[in-house]
């Protein structure tokens, strides 16, 4: 876990003091809302339907017990006792008062956290593979690079007023658990012919009104040049991005209009001009960061008798093992998912009490580490197999052990019209309703992997374009309606979903999902996931099932 050095500490403290003064000036009427709004947004503070919302950065989704306990305490003291994890692996508190915000930032700084650049036209909080440092299929710990990007990009003067927001995701594994193809820049580590490590650089992915998957502009960038190359990309974007039109201002539109090849050529030309030494991280600094990400694993047997015994007598635990426990690179350890997807509850919501339970488990059983993934769940990344039964029991007692990871009730939903000032329709009640319909774990397991993603408007915070089933809330003559898309994926086989048909009213959505599940179960061939069947059959059978009795 990266620890702030004195420079980091002083920097965050300065920023907090600055924001305190800005809030005081706003409350005293010395600055107007128009002047203040961009300032509060640069500190992650939005004004929503019921209150202010504070979006707290969780760099590359990594937390420890002290941080999560602090978040629990802040949520209890200054909010309504719960928080909401987002697809950007941040935590949102939805009931914040402006006058409390500076105090909250001070409390966050005590545990080396902040909310800088979780909004605004800046380089936003960097995300990474949530299995980083724990999975056997990675070439390096991507958080080393994500932390380097965090330090380089935070309050970077040249990139604080970009044409539009800018998001970077990093992975070092073959399996893409960081959705790198839907990011402004996606970085995927590869090994070069001579054994050297480098990044495949993808640019111009993004969802929203005009969704695109990222295009590779460089197959292999030696890792040591990461920052200078990012700088070159940002410079080209900063110069040519469409500041005149908010709907065309993201880098994806620039890349699409120039073509990835031409965009890549311009980046290379920019990069060739630059003094790489000045920007690239010196080896000493890289080593300092790297030293913070080296957990010590014990030498253990790859098989745990305690776990096998527990599994033999307990079907619920066996199901939990099948869906929520994953192989670890160190023998005798596992990654354990903490489900924030209890059917009927709000996806991604967690109470302060639950945060404290998870913090205790991280401290006792997971080398004091925790991860947030973009599916709005948490992960205990380093649990000894021997301890998995105890961890399961504690999670179950706290309502955090639903064995549904990647199943139909593991639904992504943005806050939607229940909170968000930009929404067209609600997302959460749709998710609740679908998850309740498929709450039976046996049935959910029969259906298998099926990723439903819901957004309350075209901004697509709920990633609906890349859901196996995507649901988008739209406003149709003043009523909440929902447009369904099929066949999207945000992983290494990334694709954008295809429209099913005319939008459906809220009370028809769950039935439509069930009808499509029936089609899948009828059509599927050995071992096919919903996505595979859809890709083979196309949209027609699903469309027929949903719209058949509409006439």
């Amino acid at each position, binding site marked *: 876990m990266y620890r702030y050095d004195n420079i980091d500490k002083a920097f965050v403290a300065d920023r907090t003091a600055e924001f305190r003064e800005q809030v005081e000036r706003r409350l005293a009427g010395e600055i107007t809302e128009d002047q203040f709004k961009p300032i509060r947004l640069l500190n992650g503070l939005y004004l929503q*339907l019921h209150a202010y919302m504070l979006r707290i950065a969780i760099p590359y989704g990594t937390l420890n017990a002290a941080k999560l306990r602090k978040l629990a305490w802040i949520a209890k003291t200054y909010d309504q006792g719960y928080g909401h994890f987002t697809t950007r692996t941040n935590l949102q508190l939805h009931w914040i008062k402006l006058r409390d915000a500076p105090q909250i930032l001070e409390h966050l700084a005590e545990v080396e956290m902040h909310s800088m650049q979780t909004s605004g036209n800046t380089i936003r909080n960097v995300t990474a593979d949530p299995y980083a440092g724990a999975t056997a299929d990675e070439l390096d710990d991507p958080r080393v690079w994500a932390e380097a990007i965090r330090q380089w990009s935070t309050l970077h003067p040249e990139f604080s007023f970009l044409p539009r927001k800018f998001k970077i995701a990093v992975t070092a594994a073959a399996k893409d658990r960081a959705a790198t193809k839907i990011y402004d820049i996606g970085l995927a580590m590869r090994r070069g012919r001579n054994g050297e490590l480098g990044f495949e650089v993808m640019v111009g992915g993004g969802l929203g009104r005009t969704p695109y998957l990222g295009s590779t502009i460089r197959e292999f960038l030696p890792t040591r040049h990461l920052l200078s190359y990012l700088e070159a990309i940002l410079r080209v974007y900063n110069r040519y991005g469409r500041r005149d039109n908010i709907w065309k201002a993201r880098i994806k539109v620039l890349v699409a209009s120039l073509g990835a090849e031409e965009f890549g050529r311009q980046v290379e030309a920019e990069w060739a001009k630059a003094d790489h030494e000045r920007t690239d991280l010196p080896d000493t600094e890289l080593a300092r960061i790297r030293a913070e990400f080296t957990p010590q694993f014990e030498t253990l047997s790859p098989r745990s008798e305690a776990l096998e015994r527990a599994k033999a007598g307990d079907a619920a635990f066996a199901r939990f093992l099948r869906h929520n426990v994953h192989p670890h690179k160190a023998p005798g350890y596992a990654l354990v998912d903490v489900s924030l997807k209890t059917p009927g509850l709000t996806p991604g919501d967690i109470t302060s009490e639950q945060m404290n339970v998870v913090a205790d488990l991280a401290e006792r059983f997971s080398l004091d580490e925790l991860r947030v993934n973009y599916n709005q769940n948490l992960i205990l990344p380093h649990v000894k197999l021997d301890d998995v039964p105890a961890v399961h029991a504690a999670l179950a007692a706290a309502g955090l052990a639903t064995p549904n990871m990647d199943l139909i009730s593991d639904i992504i939903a943005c806050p939607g019209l*229940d909170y968000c000032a930009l929404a067209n329709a609600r997302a959460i009640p749709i998710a609740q309703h679908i998850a309740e319909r498929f709450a039976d774990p046996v049935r959910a397991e029969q259906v298998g992997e099926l990723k439903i993603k819901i957004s309350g408007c075209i901004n697509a915070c709920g990633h609906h374009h890349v859901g196996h089933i995507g649901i988008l809330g739209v406003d149709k003559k003043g009523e909440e309606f929902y447009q369904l898309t099929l066949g999207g994926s945000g992983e290494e086989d990334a694709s954008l979903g295809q429209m099913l048909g005319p939008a459906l009213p809220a009370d028809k959505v769950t039935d439509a999902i069930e009808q499509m599940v029936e089609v899948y179960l009828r059509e599927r061939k050995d071992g096919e996931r919903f996505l595979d069947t859809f890709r083979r059959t196309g949209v027609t059978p699903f469309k027929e099932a949903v719209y058949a009795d509409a006439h």
Partner: protein
Amino acid sequence: MKALTANRLADGEAVFWNQGQWVPRFKDAQLFEDAAVAETTEGEAKSQQTVVVDPYLIDVIQSEGLWAPLSFRERIRALGPSNHPQHGKQALGGDDIAALQHAHGAARSTGRVNLIKRK
């Protein structure tokens, strides 16, 4: 019929105009029959920069003999989030809250006058 709403600067709470004061419950909101009066009042509200943020007029309709915001979005602001019924103004209960919860048939997500969406 219109009402005037905003979010309070200090805490972000959704509030409604009544005779120069801002009140948290929709049932206490002043209603404007005369559009011109409503607009003049909106202008007055906009000058209260240290009290509220972004005041705007909303359309209201009748529900169960009481008044309710026309738009679903505004009803959610007047009630609280539908996924957490214990949070927000709806937790207070009462006939006025029930009337807002039962209001239907109107536009659900728009209805704010002169709404401009920015992200």
